[in-house]
Each structure stands twice: as structure tokens, then as C-alpha cells.
């Protein structure tokens, strides 16, 4: 074991999660933090803390040099990037290694290959993984692109190769619309990402988002089964489940095998997620992208498999072989995660940074709450709004839904507005209960239901 001390280059609930994983491996945790996070739960829980800069993320959590210096000075052997920030920044991964440290994630070249949407698509096609019909690679000639759009069939999505998380996507329904939108998309991508590269994909109207968790040590690769994350608002997931109940056993096996094939084809080392669109009407699935990091929704996989994915990725980075075989990974029951954001769902999801008063955290069998909260905590306005995640696990989906409702009824966060009322309303919705949802289901639902989302119990008379 080379790693005795890990520097955590992230914040919030995932920083807390990584500290816990480090502890279970007998490692010390150093929390790198901005000045705005000096009072964070992660800083309180870590063995050591180092301030790396002022509140704006660009000057702290995105300042790779400051993070590497903090790691060297604290005597850490490794850096865990969490998700977001520098987690999928290939140059940062390279710089960490160049400084003589271990990057807890795949190497820079793998991140580069899978992070670029067009090269990731090519890698998937090379590995025999189905991809959404589209342009093969980056469009080189915008004039000729309309012919490719015709071949794919309208509506098509125009995507920025450097985009992600739903950013830089345009939808063209006709050739005329395409001629107008494509140059705009190129200009905007150049301005937003410094890379005007575009590619095209067929728009699949009603699809589910299904993703496969994989682990690899560079020579051996396993899948940790799938998650379904079809409930999304502005392409941000709000509710995740494992397993995906919409899949037949045959399709599930094909999907998971495809993810392993892709991981093997790039010699993947670490934890990753292969994301697919599943067209329920045709039964076809298509690769969309690979995330080369731990994901927000990893706990639903941990719940059904009884594994610690964060500890496993640290072990792999430390040079140990994968501790699990495919046969060890047998799913048990059903898990649901809801994301608790500091946003007011009754008021167009207005961000709600504020001070937490008293809190009551749900507990009991099959209930897990990963969070960054303590009574009196002042939620800073500088970062994303995720406060925590409530994860429930039960023998089957209907019992998991019952457990989710019971846990939400116990949750009280005085003084904050959160998305908990949205989760409670979704848990009662007939479509959600029967699993009849797709990635464009939630937004229209919100248009007709948002005003009915009452706030938490302590706000009621």
C-alpha cells in the first residue's frame, strides 16, 4: 500500500463520502477547501484541512496548481478529485502524476479519449457498442453536414464535442432549421469551450437514461450492473434507481456486457460509468457517453451490491488488483436515490442558500443519507446546490418507494427550502410508481405540478 494520506480536491457531500472511504482503508484524509468552506462538514471530519483559495471555484477547486501544492505540502500520496471540478480534466490528471502523486481515476489519456464526445463515440463503435445514429466524428465541413443530417433523419441533435451535462446541444427539426442552427452552435461552442467542434446525433424522442457502473484495474474489468436515471430536469438527474426495471434480462445482459467491452477496449483503470439511451419502443440501446469518475448516484449501486465503490477506486489507484469478480456482484433488492438540492421547487427551483437550523436526519433499516449538513451550517452561495442524497434500499421496488416516503417524512431541515417536496410528490405519482417515465417526462410534469409542491412541514401552519 503506497497511499497513506489522500488529499480531497472537492467539497460538499462527496468530500464527506471520500473521507469515509479513506478512513475505512486506514488512510488519512486531507481536505482541500476554499475560504468559504472553512466551516464545512468535510473540513470538520477530515484529519487535516488546507485552504487553497478564495470562494470562486475558478480560484480554488479549479486551481490545479494550488491543489497539487497543497497535496505535496501535506505529505499526501494521492489526490481524489470527486465529481465535477477537475475530476475529468485530463491535463490535471497528468499534472498530478508529473508531480509524483497518484491521481485517483484513470490516466490522462483515457480521460482525454473518453471525455471528448466524438472520440468516445468512436471508441464505443470500435468496441462494438451501439451508438446513436449520427455523424462519424467531428463535422469538418458545415456545408456538407446537412447531407449527413438528412441521412440520419430529422430531428437531429447538434452537439459540441467539448460540451457535456446537456450543455451545447441544439435540436434541428428541418434542413432549414439545421442550416440556421449549425453555425450558431459552432460559434457558441468556440466561445464557451474554446473548441467549436460539432457532431450530430439522431434525436430519440422517448428514451430512458440507463447507465452501467464499471470497475477495471487495467487488466480485468467488471460491471456493477445498471442504474436508471430518467427523471431529469434541465438534463440534471433528480432521482436514480438500481436496477432498471424497464429492461428485459436479455437486454440488461447485453447492455452490461457492452459497457465491460468498452472498458476493456480502453484498458480502463478505476471506476467509471457508461451511459446509454434506451429506446423502449424498439428495445434498442445506444451509447451516449462515458464518465471517467465516481458519480453522484453511485450509492444506489452500492446498496444493491453491498460494495464500497469509492474504496474500490482508491484501492485500484493504489495499484491493487480488482478485489471483485463478476460472480461476486449479485444484485439484491431495489434502491432509489433522490437528490436534495437547496432550491425551492415551488418557485421555479430558485437557489436557496441559507442557514440550517435544527435538523432531523432519517435513519433505520435500508436508509442512507449522504450529506454535508449540520445544525447552524450556512450553505454557501458559490457552488452547486446539492446538499445531500437520500438513498433507500428494500427487497423490491414498491417497498423501496414506501421506505422513501417514510424517510422523507422524517427529514426536517429547518430554515432551508429544498427539493424534498418534489421527491415526496414524485413518490406518490402514478407514472413514477408504475415506472412509466422517460427523460422528457419530468419537465412537462413540473409545468402542471410545480405550484402544488408545498414546502416542508415546518413551514405549514
Amino acid at each position: 500500500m503506497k497511499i497513506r494520506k489522500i488529499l480531497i480536491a472537492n467539497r460538499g457531500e462527496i468530500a464527506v463520502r471520500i473521507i469515509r472511504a479513506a478512513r475505512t482503508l486506514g488512510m488519512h484524509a486531507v481536505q482541500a477547501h476554499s475560504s468559504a468552506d472553512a466551516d464545512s462538514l468535510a473540513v470538520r471530519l477530515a484529519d487535516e484541512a488546507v485552504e487553497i483559495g478564495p470562494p470562486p471555484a475558478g480560484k480554488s477547486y479549479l486551481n490545479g496548481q494550488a491543489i497539487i501544492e497543497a497535496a505535496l505540502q501535506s505529505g499526501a500520496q494521492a489526490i481524489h478529485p470527486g465529481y465535477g471540478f477537475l475530476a475529468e480534466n485530463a491535463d490535471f490528471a497528468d499534472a498530478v502524476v508529473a508531480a509524483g502523486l497518484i491521481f485517483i481515476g484513470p490516466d490522462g489519456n483515457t480521460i482525454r479519449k473518453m471525455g471528448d464526445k466524438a472520440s468516445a463515440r468512436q471508441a464505443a463503435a470500435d468496441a462494438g457498442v451501439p451508438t446513436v445514429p449520427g455523424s462519424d466524428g467531428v463535422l469538418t465541413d458545415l456545408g456538407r453536414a446537412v447531407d449527413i443530417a438528412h441521412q440520419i433523419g430529422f430531428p437531429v441533435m447538434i452537439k459540441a464535442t467539448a460540451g457535456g451535462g446537456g450543455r451545447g446541444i441544439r435540436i434541428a427539426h428541418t434542413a432549414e432549421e439545421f442550416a440556421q442552427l449549425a453555425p450558431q452552435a459552432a460559434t457558441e461552442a468556440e466561445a464557451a469551450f474554446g473548441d467549436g467542434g460539432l457532431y450530430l446525433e439522431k434525436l430519440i424522442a422517448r428514451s430512458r437514461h440507463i447507465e452501467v457502473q464499471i470497475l477495471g484495474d487495467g487488466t480485468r474489468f467488471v460491471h456493477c450492473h445498471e442504474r436508471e436515471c430518467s427523471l431529469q430536469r434541465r438534463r440534471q438527474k433528480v432521482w436514480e434507481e438500481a436496477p432498471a426495471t424497464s429492461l428485459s434480462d436479455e437486454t440488461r445482459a447485453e447492455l452490461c456486457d457492452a459497457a465491460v467491452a468498452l472498458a476493456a477496449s480502453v484498458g480502463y483503470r478505476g471506476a467509471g460509468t457508461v451511459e446509454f439511451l434506451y429506446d423502449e419502443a424498439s428495445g434498442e440501446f445506444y451509447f451516449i457517453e462515458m464518465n471517467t469518475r465516481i458519480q453522484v448516484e453511485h450509492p444506489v449501486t452500492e446498496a444493491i451490491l453491498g460494495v464500497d465503490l469509492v474504496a474500490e477506486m482508491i484501492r485500484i489507484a493504489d495499484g491493487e488488483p480488482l478485489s471483485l469478480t463478476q460472480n461476486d456482484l449479485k444484485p439484491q433488492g431495489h434502491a432509489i436515490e433522490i437528490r436534495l438540492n437547496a432550491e425551492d421547487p415551488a418557485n421555479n427551483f430558485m437557489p436557496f442558500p441559507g442557514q440550517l437550523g435544527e435538523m432531523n436526519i432519517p435513519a433505520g433499516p435500508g436508509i442512507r443519507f449522504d450529506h454535508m449538513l449540520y445544525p447552524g451550517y450556512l450553505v454557501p452561495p458559490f457552488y452547486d446546490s446539492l446538499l445531500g442524497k437520500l438513498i433507500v434500499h428494500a427487497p423490491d421496488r414498491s417497498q423501496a418507494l414506501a421506505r422513501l416516503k417514510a424517510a422523507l417524512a422524517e427529514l426536517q431541515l429547518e430554515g432551508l427550502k429544498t427539493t424534498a417536496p418534489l421527491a415526496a410528490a414524485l413518490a406518490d405519482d402514478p407514472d413514477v410508481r408504475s415506472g412509466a417515465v422517460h427523460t422528457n417526462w419530468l419537465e412537462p410534469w413540473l409545468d402542471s405540478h410545480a405550484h402544488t409542491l408545498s414546502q416542508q412541514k415546518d413551514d405549514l401552519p
Partner: protein
Amino acid sequence: MSKAEIRTPLPGIFYRKPAPDEPRFKNPGDKVAVGDVIGLVEVMKTFTQITSDVEGTVLSFLVEDEEAVMPGQVLVEIET
């Protein structure tokens, strides 16, 4: 001649430009009309425009570009 102050109602990060490579909304000496945007405050990745409720001339900015602000903090002084 008197001095008016424009304050941020929100906590967050103050930006003086619509995008990093674009010019600043306003500079000292610029004329300001009611409703003119003087900056943006980013709260949890959501951007809110800060507009002027007075007419006049920009005296000075009390907050730098990309600096953290608290609710009620004065962003800019305007001579009316």
C-alpha cells in the same frame, strides 16, 4: 448632485461582464439609465442580473469582478 448606491439582494459572486471575453457592462464615468444592467450575481450556478433603479453616472465600483458578495452589499455608486 447626490450619490445613489446599488446593492445586491443576493449572496454570490459578482461579475462585471456578460461573459469572460466580453466588455464590462459599465465603467466609471458611463451614463446609466433606469433598468440598465450593471452586473450579474451568480448564486449556485444561476445568474441574476443586477439593474440600476436610478439614472446618472457611474462613480465607482466597490466590488471587483468575480468577487464574493453578501446580501445588502453595495456594488456600485452612482452620481444622480
